């Protein structure tokens, strides 16, 4: 921190006991930059026992609001000790400033926010989370109602934003999802190869790659990427609209924000994500194939032949069937968090982050539930 030269005057501010008992002398520039030093000087003053105090301020050369405030505070502190304080010699313009500060300080109470204790913080947090969970539930309900209304009157379905969202969330995600699942296929085949070779079970690399991709990994990876790509965008878009009061404007125009902003996104993502999953299935298997040939000597032809036996139709459909559920989760969480934005730009950022974390968490949770259910059903 660099000290700033005081522009008004270079004279150092000071407060010292005067010549006679019961007298204090103020001098120098009582300005903001002298405040720390002044406060120390005030603390160092010998405790005055006199009932009457005279403060001579004729040597004060400059004063700003902070200096005036410190003087007022000092006067009050002295008065609180039971002394009658008289201020003399202050220049008229500084006196006017002192009056202004005194008037404003009178209006000011001493409200200081007490930092909450541990228990209170835990309680508040728990309550917030509960409200948030209920809020999400309520939002799903509202969304379902909006969907029901739209289905009852199909003219209200907005096709243009749906198509637009399919393009941005689906088509434009093809390169990244494709690349990642291709790499995933390679990695699985590579890791499995050494183990399988040991048992001479080379051909089972097809089962390993195809089944794990189709049934679990490909829907999951796709959902996670889409949550990061599109779910966050939904939250940011709706959140920004909330900040700029566009959502309120929509309401006043008589357009339901859910109908215009949420439904198209949910519908579009529920169409796009299964399609993406089919695509990533293919890319993952391709990755496995590319790796299986040099590592295990399995030709593309053998690999494809084995595919039909390795992945049953039910496994394949289970994988794709999970995608619309993930899509609904991602779109709803993203939109919901967008609507939770309050006021500031910072809140948009926070909600966007929360939307990604929450949707990925929920996607994995639901995936685990699916596994249990399908296991019980023997699928």
């Amino acid at each position: 921190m660099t000290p700033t030269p005081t522009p008004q005057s270079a004279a150092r501010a000071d407060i010292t006991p005067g010549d006679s008992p019961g007298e204090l002398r103020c001098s120098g520039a009582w300005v903001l930059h002298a405040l720390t030093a002044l406060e120390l000087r005030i603390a160092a003053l010998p405790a005055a026992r006199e009932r009457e105090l005279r403060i001579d301020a004729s040597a004060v050369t400059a004063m700003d609001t902070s200096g005036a405030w410190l003087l007022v505070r000092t006067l009050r502190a002295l008065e609180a000790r039971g002394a009658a304080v008289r201020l003399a010699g202050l220049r008229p313009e500084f006196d006017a400033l002192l009056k202004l500060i005194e008037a404003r300080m009178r209006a000011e109470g001493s409200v200081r926010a007490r930092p909450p204790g541990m228990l209170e913080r835990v309680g508040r947090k728990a309550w917030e989370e509960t409200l948030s969970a209920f809020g999400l539930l309520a939002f799903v309900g509202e969304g379902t109602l909006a969907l029901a209304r739209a289905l009852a009157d199909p003219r209200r379905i907005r096709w243009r934003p749906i198509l637009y969202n399919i393009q941005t969330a689906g088509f434009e995600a093809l390169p990244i999802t494709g690349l990642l699942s291709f790499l995933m296929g390679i990695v699985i085949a590579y890791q499995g190869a050494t183990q399988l070779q040991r048992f001479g079970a080379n051909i089972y690399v097809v089962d390993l790659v195809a089944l794990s991709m189709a049934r679990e990994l490909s829907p999951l990876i796709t959902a996670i990427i889409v949550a990061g790509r599109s779910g966050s965008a939904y939250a940011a878009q709706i959140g920004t609209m909330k900040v700029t009061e566009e959502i309120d404007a929509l309401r006043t125009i008589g357009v339901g924000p859910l109908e215009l902003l949420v439904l198209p996104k949910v519908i579009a993502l529920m169409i796009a994500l299964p399609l993406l999953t089919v695509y990533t299935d293919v890319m993952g298997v391709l990755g496995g194939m590319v790796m299986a040939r040099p590592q295990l000597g399995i030709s593309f032809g053998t690999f494809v032949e084995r595919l039909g036996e390795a992945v049953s139709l039910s496994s394949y459909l289970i994988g794709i069937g999970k995608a619309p559920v993930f899509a609904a989760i991602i779109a709803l969480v993203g939109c919901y968090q967008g609507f939770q934005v309050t006021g500031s730009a910072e809140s948009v950022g926070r909600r966007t982050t929360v939307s990604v974390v929450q949707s990925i968490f929920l996607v994995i949770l639901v995936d685990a539930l699916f596994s249990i259910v399908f296991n019980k059903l023997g699928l």
Partner: protein
Amino acid sequence: MSDAVVEIEHLNTRFGDAVVHRDVGFSVARGEIFALVGASGCGKSTLLRETIVLQRPQSGSIRVFGQEVVGMDDEAALALRRRWGVMFERGALFSALTVSENVTMVLEEHTDLGPALRAEVAALKIALTGLPPDAGPKYPSELSGGMRKRAALARAMALDPELLFLDEPTAGLDPLSATGIDELVRHLRDALGLTIMMVTHDLDLLWRTADRVAVLGDGRILGIGTMNELSKSDDALIHEYFYGPRGRAAREQAWNRR
């Protein structure tokens, strides 16, 4: 050193083909409340931004405290920036900080005050602008428009500047709060000898506080002087500005108060 705090000479600003300022010049004396008025889009705020080194004019000279600021880099501007405070039209409070943190942040950056003293000085500035004490721990998004303006003023005054730039200090305020700002501005000038340069549309504020007013239009200064002098001007645009229905009401009110 001349007594002018802000001196502007031969200022030219263009945005592409649009000429905003054409050879504009005026000066603001120490301790003066100087107002820039003019129709929306006439370049008032641009002029203010150029004066506070946020934007660069095509040519001309702007001297603040006797120093040329045109072409000044941020580092050189820092010393000057500590001597002036700026209140932006929409407040420009940092939304991630509370009101009192908005003020203490400036103090922390530029003074050696300890945390306790900083908090107390911040509370003083907040009180000075007429905000209730419970506004301190609130976030800007929790405040009304008028309160946000006051909080912005509190931040602008954090370092007790000699020169205060106000961009539309009363826009969006209810008449009562606006009157509060009028009085505050005058009080500050009288008590602290502050120089204030403001951009405003508020005719009441002009009549109540401004010592001198410059009317900007057509890229140049149409007239400069006290409100009384300007209201007698025969320039068509100035006349329209002051004698439109709103102008008349404010002028009559100002007369009635005398």
